[in-house]
C-alpha cells in the first residue's frame, strides 16, 4: 500500500502557543518549591542510568509483578487467607479436636473434607495467580528500544528498563514505564496518546514536551543529552505531576503535559523519545492498581449473617442435646442403671457422678457432630461458580461488538449477582449513550438553514407530539450514494455543486473554506483518491469531511501551507489552491474557539475562526452581525434537536495590523515570565475580534444503536437511570426523549437555577443562601408531587449548580428521597469534574450501551438467581443432613453417636452433593435470555431481593428441617423392628444409617432436580451421577476389609441391595420428602403467582 509519509509538522509548531497546557494552578508554584523535600525527593539522571548517583538511589527496575503470592509464601499466605473466615476456623478447630476422645467420629474423616475444600480453594487461588504471573511475564518480556549510550537504540525487555534510560516508543506501542516526553517525530515534539486503559475515554490526548528538549531526536542529539529531573515521589494520582528539569544550567518546570503514563498507547505519532522516570511498581498505573478494594455484595453480607444463624442453631441444638444427655447420664448413677454401659468404671465423658461435666464435654462433642449444619464447601463452591459465571459473561456472543472487536469483560467475578440487583444506573452521555461518532448534519449559512435530514431527537420529539412522521421527507433525502462516515448532510440546495445558485453563495464558499482550513487535522492518503483525515477530535474530522463532500477538499498540508482542491466558480473547473498558513491559535477548553491566519492565493490575509456561539458572538464586528438573529435562532433550534453547534466566522486582516500583532505575539511567545500563557492568551484575543459571522454548524453525535430500546427495557425493569451531561437543559430534555429516558406520560420535575443566576453564583458567593432556598423549594415541590400517590412516572431534571446544593448535607436526604422516586434523573450542565469516571477501576466493561440490557436483565438476573438459589439450597441440604443426625441422637440417648458411618458423613459435602449445586450455580436459567429481555419486570425479583429475603431463606431452612423429620421417622419406622429381608434378618445400626443416607442423598438431589429450570446434559450428569456415585461408593467402600470399612462392610451388597423393603422404603421416603415442598410450590404458582410463575405457565 502506498503510504504517503505524513509531513513532520503539526500546526501547534507554527505558534508554540500551547494553550493546551493546563492553566497553571495557583498551587503549582508552591508545589514546585517543595521539590527536594519530603514527598518530592525523586532524582533522575537522564541518559545516565549507570552513573553512581543513580545507582545509589536504588530505584526499582521495571519488573512488574501483580501476583498475590510467590512460590515461597503461597502456602502460608493462602492458608491465612482461608482461615480468616469464621466457618473455616471452626472447621479447623474441629479437625484439631477430632484427635481427642471428644470427637464423635474419626479424625481422618473430618480432616479429608477440610483438606479437599481448602485444597480446592488454594488450587483456584493458585490457578488465578498463575494466570496473573503469565500476564506479568508477558508484560515484562515485551521489548522496547533503548539508547545504549553509544550509537544506537537497541531492543531490550521491559523488565530490564532502568530509571534514566532514554527510550524510543513507536506508533501503537504501549509506554513501558512513566516517561518524560522529550521529542517526537513532529517538529514541536507533540504526540498523541490513547488513555482508554486508564480512564476509558476513546479520544486522543495530546502531550507536549518542553521546547528545549524537542530537538533531541536522532542518535547524535540523544548522545549529548544530559539532564537531571527532580520530581515527586511515586504516587497514585494519574493527573498530577510535579517536577523540575535541570538542563544546561536552566530550570524548567514539568507538568503532567510532559508525562507519558504506562498503560497508555502512542497514537498518530511515528515515534517519541522519552526518559524513564517511574519504573515498575512506581508507575502511576501500578500505584493505582495496588490492593483493589474487595467488594462484597449484599448477598454475601447476608450470607454471613445466615452462617451466624446456623452457628446459633448449632449451639442451640448442641445445648439441648447435652442437657438431655446430662439427664440421661445422671440416671445411670443409681443402682447400676444401664449396667451394660458400665457406669461404675466410666470415663469423665459418661460419668453419672459428675453429669454436669459430662454434659459440658458432650456439648463440645455436639458442636463437632452437628457441624454438618454449616456447609463447609459453601464458600469454595460460590467462588468457583462466580468464576465460571464471569466466563459466561465474557464469552457471550450477544455482547460482542463487531466494530471494536470487544466482548463484555468482567474484571472481577465477585459482583455477578449484584448485577441482578441494580437500582440505579449512572451514566455519562457522550460516548456512553452516544457513539462519540460525529456526523455533520446541518448548518446555517448567512441566516439560511440547510440540511433537511431529521435527527433522532427530532424524530423522538415529533413522536412525543404525536405527529406522524412525514415519510416523504426521508425518501427525498435518500440518495444513491454510499454513506460517508462522519457526514449525514442532505440538502439539494448545497450538494452536487448546487450551492453556486444560492443567493449567498459567497458566504457558503467562505463558510466551507473555514471548515476546510481552520483545523489541525492531517490528511492521509490511503488509496489513491481516498483521503482519510487524522484529527484530534471526531468533531473536527466531521468538519473537514463535510467540506470535502461539498467540494472543498483538503488534500495536503505542510508546515506553511494548506492545499485545497476546490471549484473555481468562474471557470467551473476543479482547481488546486494553496493557502499560506501563518498562525494557528489552537482550541482549548478555556478559549472555546480556534482560529487560523492564512493568506489566500489572492494574497488576502484572513483570520478564520470557529468556536462556541457565545464566544464568537461577542467578538463580532458591527457589520458582521448581519445574520446574528437568524443564526442564533438556528443554533437554538439545533441544540434543542440535540446537536452540537459551533459558530463560524472570519475576518480580513490588513498587512500592517498583522505585522504589528505578529511582532507582539512572537515577543510574548519568547518571554520566559510566569505569565507567558496569560500573555499569549491576551495577544490571541487581540486579533480575534471584529469577526464577520458566516453561520453555524450542527453536528450530531448519534445515539448508540439500541439505546432507546435498552433504556426502555431497563426502565420497565424498574431501574432508575441517571444521566450526566454537559448539555443545556433543553438539549438534555430533548435527548432524554430521544433515548426514552423521558417517556410519554411522564411528569417532569425541574430543579433548575436560572441561567443568569448561575452566572451570578460563579462570580460571587453571597447569593448562596438564596440559591439554596430556590433549590430547596423546588425539591420540596417535587417531593409533594411524587408522593401524590398517582401512578405516573416522574423524571427529574436537575442542573449542575442545583446539584451542588442538593448534595449539601442538609438537603441530601430529601433530594435522594425525591430522586429515588423518579424513574429518570437527568443532570444537565454538569462540569467535567462532576462527571469523572474511571474505567480502570470498573468491575465490568461492555463495548456498547445496549449490551447493558443483556448484562443486567439476562446475566444479572441469572447470576442473582443462581447464587441465591445456590446458597438457599446449600443451607437446605446441610440442614436436612444435620438434623437427621439430631433425630437419631434422640433415639440414642443423646450419646453423640453419629447415625452414619464416618466416611459417609465426610463425603456428603464433597462428593455426593457438591457438583449438582455448582452446576445449578453455573448453568441454571429460569428463563431463556429471550424471555428475560421480553419481560423486564422479571428483574424486579432481584431488586426486591425476593429470593433472598429472610422469609424465603427461612422457608428453605424449614423445608430442610421438615425433610429431615420425614426422612428419619419414615425410614426408622419402615425398616427397623421386624425382619427387613426375606431370610428373617433384621435391620441393624449400619443398615438404618445406610438407608437414611441413601434417602438423604436421593431426596436432596431430587429436590435439586425440581428446583432446576433448565437442564443441560451437565446437570443431568451431575445430579444422577452423584446418586450413582453414592451407590458405587457403597460397593467400593463396602468391599474394603472390615477393619477399615467398619460398619459399612458389605452392608449394601449383602443386606440392602437384596432387600425389597430397602428399595421400597427409599422410594416412599423420597416421594414423601419432596411432596410438601412440591405441593407448596404448585400451590404458590397457581394461586399466588409471582411474576415468574405467570410467565412460566
Amino acid at each position, binding site marked *: 500500500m502506498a503510504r504517503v509519509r505524513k509531513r513532520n509538522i503539526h500546526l501547534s509548531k507554527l505558534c508554540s502557543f500551547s494553550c493546551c497546557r493546563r492553566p497553571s494552578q495557583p498551587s503549582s508554584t508552591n508545589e514546585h518549591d517543595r521539590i527536594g523535600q519530603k514527598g518530592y525527593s525523586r532524582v533522575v539522571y537522564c541518559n545516565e542510568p549507570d552513573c553512581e548517583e543513580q545507582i545509589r538511589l536504588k530505584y526499582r527496575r521495571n519488573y512488574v509483578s501483580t501476583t498475590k503470592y510467590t512460590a515461597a509464601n503461597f502456602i502460608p499466605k493462602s492458608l491465612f487467607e482461608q482461615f480468616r473466615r469464621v466457618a473455616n476456623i471452626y472447621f479447623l478447630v474441629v479437625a484439631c479436636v477430632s484427635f481427642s476422645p471428644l470427637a464423635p467420629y474419626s479424625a481422618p474423616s473430618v480432616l479429608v473434607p477440610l483438606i479437599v475444600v481448602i485444597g480446592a480453594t488454594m488450587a483456584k487461588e493458585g490457578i488465578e495467580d498463575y494466570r496473573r504471573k503469565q500476564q506479568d511475564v508477558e508484560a515484562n518480556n515485551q521489548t522496547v528500544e533503548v539508547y545504549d549510550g553509544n550509537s544506537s537504540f537497541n531492543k531490550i525487555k521491559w523488565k530490564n528498563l532502568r530509571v534514566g534510560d532514554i527510550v524510543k516508543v513507536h506508533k501503537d506501542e504501549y509506554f513501558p514505564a512513566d516517561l518524560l516526553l522529550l521529542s517526537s517525530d513532529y517538529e514541536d515534539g507533540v504526540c498523541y496518546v490513547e488513555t482508554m486503559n486508564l480512564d476509558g475515554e476513546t479520544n486522543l490526548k495530546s502531550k507536549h514536551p518542553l521546547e528545549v528538549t524537542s530537538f533531541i531526536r536522532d542518535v547524535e542529539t540523544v548522545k549529548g543529552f544530559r539532564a537531571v529531573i527532580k520530581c515527586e515521589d511515586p504516587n497514585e494520582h494519574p493527573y498530577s505531576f510535579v517536577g523540575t528539569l535541570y538542563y544546561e544550567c536552566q530550570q524548567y518546570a514539568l507538568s503532567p503535559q510532559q508525562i507519558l503514563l504506562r498503560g497508555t498507547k502512542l497514537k498518530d505519532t511515528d515515534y517519541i523519545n522519552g526518559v524513564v522516570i517511574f519504573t515498575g511498581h512506581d508507575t502511576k498505573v501500578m500505584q493505582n492498581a495496588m490492593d483493589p478494594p474487595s467488594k462484597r455484595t449484599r448477598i454475601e453480607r447476608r450470607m454471613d449473617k445466615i452462617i451466624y444463624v446456623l452457628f446459633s442453631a448449632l449451639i442451640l441444638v448442641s445445648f439441648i442435646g447435652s442437657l438431655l444427655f446430662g439427664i440421661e447420664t445422671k440416671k445411670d448413677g443409681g443402682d*447400676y*442403671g444401664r*449396667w451394660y454401659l458400665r457406669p461404675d468404671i466410666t470415663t469423665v465423658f459418661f460419668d453419672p457422678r459428675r453429669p454436669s461435666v459430662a454434659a459440658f464435654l458432650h456439648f463440645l462433642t455436639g458442636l463437632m457432630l452437628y457441624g454438618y449444619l454449616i456447609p463447609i464447601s459453601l464458600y469454595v463452591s460460590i467462588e468457583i461458580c462466580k468464576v465460571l459465571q464471569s466466563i459466561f459473561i465474557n464469552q457471550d456472543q450477544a455482547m460482542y461488538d463487531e466494530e471494536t472487536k470487544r466482548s463484555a469483560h468482567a474484571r472481577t467475578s465477585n459482583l455477578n449477582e449484584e448485577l441482578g440487583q441494580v437500582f440505579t444506573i449512572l451514566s455519562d452521555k457522550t460516548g456512553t449513550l452516544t457513539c462519540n461518532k460525529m456526523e455533520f448534519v446541518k448548518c446555517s449559512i448567512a441566516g439560511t438553514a440547510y440540511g433537511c435530514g431529521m435527527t433522532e431527537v427530532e424524530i423522538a420529539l415529533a413522536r412525543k407530539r404525536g405527529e406522524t412522521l412525514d415519510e416523504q421527507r426521508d425518501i427525498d433525502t435518500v440518495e444513491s450514494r454510499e454513506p460517508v462516515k462522519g457526514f449525514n448532510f442532505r440538502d439539494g440546495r448545497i450538494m452536487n455543486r448546487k450551492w453556486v445558485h444560492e443567493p449567498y453563495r459567497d458566504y457558503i464558499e467562505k463558510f466551507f473554506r473555514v471548515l476546510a482550513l481552520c483545523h489541525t487535522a492531517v490528511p492521509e492518503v490511503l488509496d489513491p483518491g481516498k483521503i482519510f483525515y487524522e484529527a484530534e477530535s471526531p468533531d473536527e474530522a466531521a468538519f473537514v469531511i463535510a467540506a470535502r463532500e461539498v467540494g472543498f477538499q483538503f488534500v495536503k498540508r505542510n508546515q506553511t501551507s494548506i492545499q485545497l482542491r476546490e471549484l473555481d466558480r468562474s471557470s467551473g473547473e476543479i482547481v488546486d489552491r494553496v493557502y499560506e498558513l501563518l498562525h494557528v491559535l489552537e482550541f482549548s477548553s478555556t478559549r472555546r474557539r480556534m482560529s487560523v491566519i492564512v493568506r489566500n492565493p489572492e494574497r488576502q490575509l484572513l483570520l478564520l475562526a470557529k468556536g462556541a456561539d457565545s464566544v464568537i458572538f461577542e467578538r463580532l464586528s458591527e457589520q458582521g452581525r448581519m445574520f446574528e438573529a437568524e443564526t442564533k435562532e438556528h443554533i437554538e433550534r439545533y441544540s434543542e434537536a440535540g446537536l452540537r453547534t459551533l459558530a463560524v466566522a472570519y475576518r480580513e486582516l490588513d498587512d500592517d495590523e498583522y505585522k504589528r500583532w505578529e511582532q507582539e505575539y512572537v515577543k510574548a511567545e519568547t518571554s520566559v515570565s510566569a505569565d507567558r500563557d496569560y500573555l499569549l492568551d491576551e495577544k490571541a484575543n487581540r486579533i480575534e475580534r471584529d469577526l464577520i459571522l458566516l453561520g453555524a454548524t450542527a453536528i450530531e453525535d448519534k445515539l448508540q444503536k439500541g439505546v432507546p430500546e435498552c433504556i426502555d427495557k431497563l426502565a420497565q425493569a424498574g431501574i432508575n437511570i441517571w444521566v450526566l451531561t454537559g448539555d443545556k437543559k433543553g438539549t438534555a430534555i430533548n435527548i432524554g426523549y430521544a433515548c426514552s429516558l423521558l417517556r410519554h406520560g411522564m411528569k417532569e420535575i425541574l430543579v433548575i437555577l436560572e441561567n443568569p443566576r448561575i452566572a451570578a453564583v460563579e462570580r460571587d458567593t453571597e447569593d448562596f443562601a438564596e440559591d439554596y432556598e430556590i433549590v430547596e423549594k423546588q425539591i420540596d415541590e417535587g417531593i409533594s408531587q411524587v408522593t401524590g400517590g398517582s401512578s405516573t412516572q416522574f423524571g427529574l431534571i436537575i442542573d449542575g449548580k442545583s446539584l451542588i446544593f442538593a448534595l449539601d448535607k442538609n438537603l441530601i436526604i430529601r433530594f435522594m428521597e425525591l430522586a429515588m422516586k423518579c424513574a429518570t434523573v437527568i443532570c444537565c450542565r454538569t462540569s467535567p469534574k462532576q462527571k469523572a469516571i474511571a474505567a480502570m477501576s470498573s468491575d465490568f466493561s461492555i463495548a456498547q450501551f445496549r449490551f447493558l440490557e443483556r448484562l443486567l436483565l439476562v446475566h444479572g438476573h441469572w447470576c442473582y438467581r443462581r447464587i441465591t438459589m445456590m446458597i438457599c439450597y446449600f443451607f437446605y441440604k446441610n440442614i436436612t443432613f444435620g438434623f437427621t443426625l439430631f433425630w437419631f441422637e434422640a*433415639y440414642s440417648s443423646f*450419646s453423640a453417636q453419629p447415625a452414619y458411618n464416618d466416611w459417609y458423613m465426610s463425603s456428603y459435602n464433597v462428593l455426593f452433593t457438591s457438583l449438582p449445586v455448582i452446576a445449578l450455580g453455573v448453568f441454571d436459567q429460569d428463563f431463556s435470555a429471550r424471555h428475560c429481555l421480553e419481560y423486564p419486570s422479571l428483574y424486579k425479583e432481584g431488586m426486591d431481593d425476593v429470593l433472598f429475603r429472610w422469609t424465603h431463606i427461612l422457608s428453605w431452612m424449614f423445608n430442610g428441617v421438615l425433610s429431615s423429620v420425614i426422612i428419619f421417622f419414615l425410614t426408622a419406622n419402615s425398616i427397623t423392628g*421386624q*425382619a427387613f429381608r426375606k431370610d*428373617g434378618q433384621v435391620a441393624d445400626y449400619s443398615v438404618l444409617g445406610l438407608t437414611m443416607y441413601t434417602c438423604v442423598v436421593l431426596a436432596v438431589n431430587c429436590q435439586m432436580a425440581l428446583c432446576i429450570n433448565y437442564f443441560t446434559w451437565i446437570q443431568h450428569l451431575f445430579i444422577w451421577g452423584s446418586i450413582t456415585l453414592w451407590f458405587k461408593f457403597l460397593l467400593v467402600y463396602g468391599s474394603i476389609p472390615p477393619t477399615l470399612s*467398619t460398619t459399612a462392610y458389605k452392608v449394601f451388597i449383602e443386606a440392602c441391595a437384596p432387600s425389597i423393603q430397602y428399595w421400597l422404603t427409599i422410594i416412599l421416603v423420597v416421594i414423601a420428602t419432596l411432596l410438601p415442598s412440591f405441593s407448596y410450590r404448585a400451590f404458590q404458582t397457581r394461586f399466588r403467582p409471582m411474576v415468574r410463575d405467570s410467565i412460566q405457565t
Partner: protein
Amino acid sequence: MGVIFIPVGLVTLRASHCVIIHSMVVEIVDRYDIDCVPEPSRMDKVSYIQDDSIPKNCSRFMKVHKYMKAPIYIYYQLDNYYQNHRRYVKSRSDKQLLDGQKYHDTSSCQPVESNNNRPIVPCGLIAWSLFNDTFKFIREGAELIVNRKNIAWKSDRGHKFGKNIYPFNFQNGTLIGGGKLNPEIPLSDQEDLIVWMRTSALPSFRKLYGRIEEDLDVDDVVVVNLMNNYNTYSFGGKKKLVLSTSSWLGGKNDFLGHACVFVGCSSLSLAIIFMLLHVKYRRPYGDMSYLPWNRKSFSG
C-alpha cells in the same frame, strides 16, 4: 403441575397394595420379662435377677392364631436398651475379633479390655453384655427343632470374626455382664455373639434367635421353656419373644404399608384439589393481562 401427583399417587398406592396384600405375615409376640419373675420377687426384680441361687427357668404358652408356614423365625426383642449408645458402640475391637490375642491394642474396648492383666477375647462392652436368655419350644409334648445355624450375617461369619480365634479370659472378671461363651468354639461359629454384636439402630430392637423349620397350625399351643437370665430390670427394659413368618418383603410391616397408603392418598387428593381449583378458577392460557407490566403502561 398437579397432574404429576396422579401417577405418583397411583404408583404409591399400588406399592402399598403389594405391601399389605402380599405380606400376610403371621406374628406372635409375647412379653415375658415381668411374668417370668415370681410374684414375691416382683417388688425387687433386680436383686432377683442378680441372685444366681434362684433358678431362672420359666414357661410361657403361645397360641398360634393363624397357620404359620415354615420357616418360622424366632426373635428376642429388647426395648429401652441403648445398643446405639456411643460408649457402647465404640467398645469393641474389630481387629481383635479377626486376629485374637495377637492383636494387642485393645484400648478401644474400654472399659472391658483386660482382666488380671490378660486380654479378654472378645473384648469390649458389647461382647461383655451378651444376651443370655435361652428358649426351648415344645408342641404337643414334642420338642420343636430350632435351627440356630446361619442366623448371623454371612460376611460377619466369614470376614469379621476369626475362624481360629477362641474366646479367652471371657467373663472372668468380678462383674459378669451377660452370657458366657464356650471357649472350644471359634468366634466365627459363635453365632449368638455375632448377632449380638451387630448393634441395633434404635433402643427397641429384635435379634434373630433361630428358626423353627416346621409349620405351625392354627390353635397349636407352643410351650416355651426359657431361662430368664438377662437383666433388663435395672434400667426398665422389656423382653419379648417373637415368632414370625416371613414374606418376600420380610417381616410384618404395617407401617410401610400405611405410609404408602397415606402418601399415595395425599398425592391423589392433592391432584384432585388442584384440578378442581383449576376448573373453578380457569385462566385462559396466555392471558397475561393482569401481570404487573401490563397493568402499568410504560410505552413512551
